Each structure stands twice: as structure tokens, then as C-alpha cells.
């Protein structure tokens, strides 16, 4: 009995000794962390150096500034942009502790912005830290900006208090028009790791002057391996998205069949499939696209609710889609970068042939032929069938 008591006493003393000695190593109180919501990388003046901008949230201001608009120019922003220059992203991140009183905390980062000039030199050395570091997550959005990333991160808008969250939501909203892709870091990595498929990223720029600055997402940045080589405009981007099955919405204008104005068709659903066919010495890629749409508006006055007219509208729509795809294809061929993933689809179907092809893919790619097969259906004409004009007799 007394042995037991002695034993228990010894254990308790050991535990009590441990508590003051150990401390909790990984403990970070909420008010000792600064939450990074946006990261931007720019070229710095010195060659080889980059400037890293991180946008850090001030949570107290977030709550209290709900009543204020962006008309307040005084520094009661809910965020704080810190900038530093250095050679590698990782050392700059650690360097921030010289200026910020709190440790930077990355898991809530929403967006990674790369300046275009930096992307043209190659992203691999800078993007590796965001993949390898355990704090950063893979569903961060990757964006390329025409202007300097630090400026982009400074544009505050009327809807959101934090510019980085605004950018993230802006990129996500592109699904309405499908004229810009939504690229998460994991998608970017997947394309980076592929030998043939080229990475893409949405392009963003600052428009307006002074207090009226806004952001605009326009088009796609096309890379080859990790260097930026060109861009696709909005229409070409949609063509690209048709092929890679990422179109979720959009508006296409076709001329009305009786020549009386234009009809706007809204895409509601789209699905695409790529099938490679290797014949003798040519490679053919068959692209099947099925799209559904509804009539959104009509500037003429004819009654488009008859099946013939709908049928002709569908054919016009298919033709438009085909034009968009061909435009994208032309730009891709000019830039010689396989943004569609033709190489991968050949690999999936013909692995043995692929081994020979992948060495000379750069020469083969521009000669790849594409056969389109587009099938559209217009399911409804909206609220009304004939337009609101006096009926024709």
C-alpha cells in the first residue's frame, strides 16, 4: 500500500516537473499571428531579385470597418501590404519578421499573383516554395498580372474589404462568362509536371485612375514549361476552355437567320471529349462537344420560337464555337505550346507510340490536325417566345 502511494507521488512530481520545463512549442495565440491572404511576386530593379508583397489582414479593422466605404482614404484599411526584395521567395518570407511583429501565417492564403515580366523569365525557382512548404495549400489560385502585383494587391473595391479575397472571388466568378480559366495551384502543378501540356493562368490588370481603380480579368497567360510565352484573348480563352471541358457559362452572339439583328445565346451546359487517332503518319484529334443553351436576348423582331429557326440558331452557335476553338488552336500553334493537353490524351490511348513521339513533340504539335464535332441544343427561348412587338400578320 505504501509502495503504491510512493509510486504515485513520484509520477506526479515528474509530471509537475515536465510542465514548466516543456512549454508548448507549437503554440501560437491568435493575436500573435498575421494571416496572409494574398501573395504577389514582382521583378525588382536588381537583376535576379524579386519583390514579394504579402497582404496581411487586420481582423479588428475588418469588423469595425463594415460601416465605412472605400471613400475613406485614411489608413483604416482592413489590410496591410508588406513588401520586401530578395533572391528567393523562401528567404524573403522569413525576412518579413524584420518588419512584421507577428509571424506570417500562410494557410489562409487565397491567391498567388505573378507579374508578367517575372513569369516570362520562368516561374520554377519561385513557385517551388509555395508547393513544398507545408503551410501553403494547393487550392490557392494562381494569377498572372499585367501590372505590378503590388499595385494589384492595393486596389480596394466596393464589395470586399480585402483586395486579395476580391481577386480570388473575381477569378472564381469568371465561370459565368468562361472567358478566363480558374487555375488552382494543383492544376498548375499538374501541367508543370507534364512533359507536353503547357500551364495556363488567368490574366489580370488594373484599369482606371486614382480612386476609381478596378481590376479586370481578361484572357489567359500561356506558358511553355515554366516561362510565359504568350496570351490568349477572351474569345480564344473560351475556345481553349471548350476543349478542356471547363466551360460553365457564357454568352455568344449570332446573327439572326433573317438578317434582322443579333440573337444572344447563353450557354448553360457544355461537355467535351478528346479522342486521339493516329493514322499512318498524321495525328488526328477528334473533339466532340455537346453544348446546351437558352436564348437570352434578341435585338430583332422575328419570332424565333419556331423549330426551324431554333435549328438554324443551333447550327450558327456550333459554327461560332468552332470558330472560337480554331482561334485558340491557331494561337497555340503559333506559340507552339500544347495548352489543350493533346499530348496527354495520346499518351493515355497510345502509350507505346507516345514514347517515340514525346521526344519530338515540339515539331509534331503544330501539325496535329483537329476534327471538330459540335452538337448544340437550345433548350428554351426564355420567358417569352415572340418578342414584345406587335404581332406580324
Amino acid at each position, binding site marked *: 500500500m505504501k509502495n503504491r502511494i510512493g509510486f504515485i507521488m513520484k509520477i506526479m512530481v515528474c509530471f509537475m516537473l515536465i510542465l514548466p520545463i*516543456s512549454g508548448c*512549442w*507549437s503554440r501560437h495565440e491568435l493575436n500573435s499571428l498575421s494571416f496572409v491572404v494574398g501573395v504577389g511576386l514582382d521583378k525588382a530593379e536588381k537583376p535576379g531579385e524579386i519583390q514579394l508583397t504579402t497582404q496581411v489582414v487586420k481582423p479588428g479593422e475588418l469588423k469595425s470597418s463594415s460601416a465605412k466605404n472605400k471613400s475613406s482614404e485614411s489608413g483604416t484599411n482592413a489590410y496591410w501590404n508588406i513588401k520586401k526584395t530578395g533572391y528567393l521567395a523562401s528567404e524573403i518570407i522569413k525576412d518579413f519578421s524584420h518588419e512584421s511583429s507577428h509571424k506570417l501565417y500562410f494557410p489562409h492564403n487565397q491567391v498567388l499573383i505573378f507579374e508578367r515580366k517575372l513569369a516570362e523569365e520562368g516561374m520554377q525557382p519561385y513557385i517551388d516554395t509555395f508547393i513544398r512548404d*507545408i503551410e501553403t*495549400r*494547393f*487550392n490557392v489560385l494562381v494569377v498572372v498580372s499585367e501590372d505590378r502585383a503590388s499595385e494589384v494587391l492595393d486596389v480596394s473595391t466596393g464589395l470586399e474589404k480585402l483586395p486579395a479575397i476580391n481577386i480570388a472571388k473575381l477569378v472564381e466568378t469568371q465561370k459565368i462568362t468562361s472567358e478566363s480559366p480558374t487555375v488552382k495551384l*494543383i492544376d498548375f*502543378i*499538374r501541367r508543370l*509536371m*507534364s512533359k507536353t501540356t503547357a500551364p495556363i493562368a488567368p490574366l489580370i490588370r488594373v484599369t482606371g485612375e486614382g480612386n476609381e481603380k478596378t481590376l479586370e480579368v481578361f484572357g489567359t497567360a500561356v506558358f511553355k514549361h515554366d516561362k510565359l510565352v504568350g496570351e490568349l484573348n477572351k474569345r480564344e480563352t473560351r475556345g481553349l476552355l471548350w476543349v478542356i471541358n471547363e466551360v460553365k457559362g457564357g454568352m455568344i452572339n449570332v446573327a439572326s437567320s433573317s438578317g434582322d439583328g443579333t440573337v444572344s445565346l447563353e450557354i448553360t451546359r457544355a461537355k467535351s471529349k478528346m479522342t486521339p487517332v493516329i493514322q499512318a503518319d498524321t495525328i488526328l484529334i477528334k473533339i466532340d462537344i455537346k453544348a446546351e443553351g437558352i436564348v437570352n436576348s434578341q435585338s430583332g423582331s422575328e419570332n424565333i420560337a419556331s423549330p426551324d429557326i431554333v435549328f438554324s440558331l443551333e447550327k450558327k452557335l456550333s459554327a461560332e464555337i468552332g470558330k472560337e476553338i480554331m482561334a485558340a488552336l491557331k494561337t497555340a500553334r503559333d506559340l507552339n505550346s500544347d495548352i489543350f493537353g493533346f499530348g*496527354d490524351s495520346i*499518351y*493515355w*490511348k497510345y*502509350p507505346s507510340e507516345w514514347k517515340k513521339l514525346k521526344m519530338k513533340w515540339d515539331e509534331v504539335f503544330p501539325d496535329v490536325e483537329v476534327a471538330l464535332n459540335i452538337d448544340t441544343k437550345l433548350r428554351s427561348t426564355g420567358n417569352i417566345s415572340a418578342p414584345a412587338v406587335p404581332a406580324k400578320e
Partner: protein
Amino acid sequence: MRLEKGIISSSQLMFLVAGYVLGSVLVAAFTNTVTKQYTWLVVLSGLAVSIPLALVYVALTRKFPGKDLVQINRIVYGPYLSKLVSALYIWFFCSIAGFMLAYLSQTIKDYMMPETPLFAICILFTCICAWTVRNGIEVLARTSVIFVMIIIFVILITFFLLLKDMELTNFLPFFDLSLKDFIQGTHIMMTLPFCEIVVFLMLFPYVNKGVETKKSVILGLLIGGGSILIDTVRNTAVLGVASTIMISPSIESVRLIDLAEIITRLEMLVITLLLIAMFIKVSVMYYGTVLGIARLCNLRSYRQLVLPIGSIIVSLSMMTFDSLAQSNDFATRTGPFFTLVFEFSPVITLLVAKIRKLPK
């Protein structure tokens, strides 16, 4: 002479085997570096190859009912050689327990608490394992029943939550795997998750109905293997080619779950899973070591050995590998051969027993 007064039923044995196999559900991911996107194939083939080995273990224990591995060795190999063989087995169990603990503490340190020294995590975890082992096999079996149900539930939930992010093209092309890689992958899969059930040869004498052991073991293997398959399929489907460069693809794929902004950031689930599964594995290995030493030295009870062996396992886990790179390298290259020796020798034992017509 029984070292342990507890008895477990055959259904509890099934859950124990399933939990043990599931202990490697996250560890099995390092075959991704070898087999790229065909890991699921290799899981199936590994399972297929390990079922006959499991049947050999069951046959061995049926031949010598009520006797555990050390005693069987003694009968088959004679008094002197058997001591060497049993000692080697005990060392094997102990070192595998140390490796698993090392992997667990390294992963937890990386993903959850980067500044915590490995020591603290190892000690806390080993305390729990030591407590369980000290309480005996009944407690181990009962906890494993509940934990296995939790683990399978979590695996299924994460699978369904990630259905919308899966792309079947990540599995194509079919069978573009070189034979050498396939065999290496099967070898790794067979030895590391599946055939480590050789430690159950120490636990079979405590199952109440010996005739149902075969069914329980095979079912347990299938349940465990099926869950590993689901997990691997999910990882490959979601991450695609990127899963080959990741250290821990299960955690990364669960990080991508993002449903309606609410069901998001669920990697806690996976890490808890890892904790629970690894707990069962380390406890069973720990228990096998302790029982083995007690039997080898003819002790009456194993309880006094629990704490010392625990401290040895903690030290082993911290000393063996200097870095995760080294442990991954070991696991893909040297480990399979090392473990194959121990997992294959019961076959030799069975043959020798048959030849010598034992037990008389």
C-alpha cells in the same frame, strides 16, 4: 502456460487484423514514387500474393494449437537454434514498431506541430500504447473494434466528398508499367502493409475458437486491403500525376475538399485516422515483442517488460532514421527484402515441421 489471461473472439480477431493492416494506409503511399499512377493495381496484386502467405501462418498455428511463435520455433528447430530465430523475430517486431512510430511522429510534426520536438510526440504516444499493452489483449481487441469502424467510416466519407474532384483520366493509360516496377511495387505492398501480420502468430493462441482463425484473418486482410485500395484510388484520382511527388498524398488530397465553404479544411480527419491506425499497429507489434521476450526468457508474466520495451521503441524510433528521405528510401529499396526474410520463414518452419512430422 498462458502469458495472458484474456481471450478474444474470432470476430474481434478479424477487426484486429483489419486495424493492423489499416495502420499502413498512409505509409503505403510511398510506393507512388515507384508505381506512379498504378498503385491501386499493385495493392490488388500485393493482396493477392499475401493471402497464401496468411494461409500459411494460419496452417502453422493450426498445426501447433495453443502455441505461439516462440514455442513453435522451439519445437521445430530445437532448443539452441530456436533461441536465435526467436530473438531475431523479436528484434524484427521491435524495429518495425520503431519505424512506424518514427513515421507517425515525423508526419505529425510536419503537418500539425512543426516546432515540437519528436521526443514529446513519441513519448506521449508510446504511453498510450504501453497502457493498452499492459491491460492485455482483450482491451486491445475491444478498442480496435471501435477504432476500425471509425477509420473505415472516415475513409468512405472522404472518398465521397472528393467524388467531384476526381478525374478518371488520371488512371490512364492502363498498364503502362514496366514489369520490374510492377514486381517491385507488389513486393513493397506485400511485405509492408499486408504480410506484417506475421506478428499475429504470437497472438493466435489467445483466440477462443481456433478453427475460425482462417476466416477471421482472411476477412481482416480483405477489409484492410479494400480500405487501402479505396484510399489509393482516391488519391490517384484526385491528385493525378502530382501524387508521385508528394510525401503524404492522402493528407494533400483531403486538403482539397471544399464543399460550399463549410465542409472544408478536413485534414484533421486524416491525421486522426493516421493516429488511430498507427496506434493499433504499434500496439500489436509492441505486444508481440513483449510476449516474445517473456516467452523466450520463461517469465511468468509480461507486465514488467512493458515500460522498458516502450522506452527502447521510443529510442529506436528516434535513432534509426536521420530524415524522412532516408526512411522513404529504406522503405522502397531495402525494407521489403528485410521484412520478406521474416515473413517468409514461417513457410520454411511449416515445411520443416511437415518433414519432421511434428507435433508427434
